[in-house]
């Protein structure tokens, strides 16, 4: 009985959490799509500067990581494929697994580490120093002012970063292809492109938009629910990273399953 009630309790807590994420996302959607027509313009400048921070400044580290991931994938695939004399399928394996799954996922994880945590820390610090309260007493909505630009930046930048990550992954794979599998560079690239369907790329990009929204919602919600005291900011930041990774994997599962059942028909 005790066990059951504990399970029930955590399920309820989980649902409440998802509910508050959705409510925050809903309010941001209101300020993005509805409020501009009621005379409350989007903070375009803040969204652009966030986008630079989230997107452009992530490029070096994201490039390096996804290049290595592409190379690792090629090595792992070749390990099995060469036993069947099918090493030329390395390009296909890398291209498909990058664009369907690993590109969006690795991008999301890099962005969680760089930006999801930063959102929680920034908003959490503002909570502790009463800056959020100050916004409210000035009749400025923190969701409008702080959170919405982040949502816009993330929803736009994550797909862009994901395309970049896919490209870098394929380039990483090509290093192995050229060095070990008798590919020329151009042949490797065209083999990769031939193996990809538009569907592979589009599903990956749809997922990446959802990841962006999820990471922003978690980061901002954790920031906004920071308690009093500086150590709470650290706690919020940690929670933001852990919860974001979990939520991203959950969203990934839901959408992958959705695409799977949709493609059956």
């Amino acid at each position, binding site marked *: 009985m005790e066990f059951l009630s504990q399970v029930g309790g955590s399920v309820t807590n989980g649902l409440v959490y998802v509910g508050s994420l959705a409510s925050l996302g809903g309010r941001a959607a209101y300020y993005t799509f509805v409020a501009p027509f009621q005379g409350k313009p989007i903070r375009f400048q803040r969204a652009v500067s966030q986008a630079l921070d989230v997107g452009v400044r992530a490029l070096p580290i994201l490039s390096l990581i996804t290049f290595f991931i592409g190379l690792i994938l090629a090595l792992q695939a070749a390990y099995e494929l060469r036993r069947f004399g099918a090493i030329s399928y390395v390009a296909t394996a890398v291209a498909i697994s990058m664009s369907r799954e690993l590109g969006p996922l690795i991008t999301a994880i890099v962005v969680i580490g760089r930006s999801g945590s930063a959102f929680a820390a920034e908003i959490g*610090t503002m909570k502790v120093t*009463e800056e959020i*309260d*100050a916004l409210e007493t*000035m009749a*400025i909505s923190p969701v409008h002012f702080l959170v919405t630009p982040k949502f816009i930046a993330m929803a736009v930048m994550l797909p862009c970063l994901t395309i970049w990550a896919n490209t870098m992954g394929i380039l990483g794979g090509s290093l192995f292809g050229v060095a070990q599998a008798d590919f020329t560079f151009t042949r490797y690239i065209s083999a990769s492109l031939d193996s990809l369907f538009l569907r592979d790329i589009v599903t990956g990009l749809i997922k990446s938009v959802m990841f962006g929204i999820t990471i922003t919602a978690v980061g901002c919600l954790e920031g906004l629910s920071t308690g009093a005291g500086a150590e709470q900011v650290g706690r919020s930041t940690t929670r933001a990273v852990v919860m974001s990774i979990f939520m991203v994997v959950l969203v990934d599962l839901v959408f992958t399953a959705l695409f799977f059942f949709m493609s059956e028909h």
Partner: protein
Amino acid sequence: MEAALTDSLETTATISVRDLRVNYGEREILHGIGFDVNRGETLVILGGSGSGKSTLLRTLVGLEKPTSGQIWIKGQNIAAISPSAMDEIRKKIGMSFQGGALFGSMTVGENVALPLREHTRLEESTIEIMLRLKLEQVGLQGFEYYMPSQLSGGMKKRAAVARALAMDPEILFFDEPSAGLDPIIAAGIDQLILELKQAFRMTIIVVTHELASAYLIADRMVLIDKGNIVAIGTTEEMRASTQPRVRQFLDRVAEPEVARELDYLQMLTEDRRRRSG
């Protein structure tokens, strides 16, 4: 009764608090308090740590929701008001937070101009002039391009006051204006509050535990203890009061905190239970 109350509001009081109760979770912080703030007066809310004075201030500016009771500000009960109507009231009040609460990513000038840029359609050049004016009023002329992190504690508070003044508020709230400042800088802030009062005839509400500062700036004082109003009156009335609790606070009689260890423990465990529950 209610009609009579609103009538009297328009003539004398800017703020009227009636039977105000505020809870944090299960624990009641304010136990049904009531008082009036007259137009143009400076009311100082005095009280020790944990007396509920900060909660009272946060409730007055709408950061906490009362459990029951009424808060009439300019004829409207903010305890039962729509968010958009509350925003309209907030444009007429200014609040200076304890640590300043300036936005660290903006310059001092951008901080002060923020409410103007958000809520008015003034030309950028007009906003520029207004922000210079506000900074001059608090003695910070020439500091508009500084970042808040480059300011000292006292300057941060002045900048925060300038931001609170940006919309020409009718009511100004201060949370612990002299907290964390040395006596000379703190006296400067008191002086600033006096100047604002004389220059603009603003209604000013100050929460503090600094007696010296309270005596200097207050027209009237409210002493709060454990969520109840112990005494309310003019500075002279308070000075002359013979009420034990008032005397204890004003004469700074020490109270052994250890004697209340059980209460304290109970408070802590309640907190814990509330948080985990």
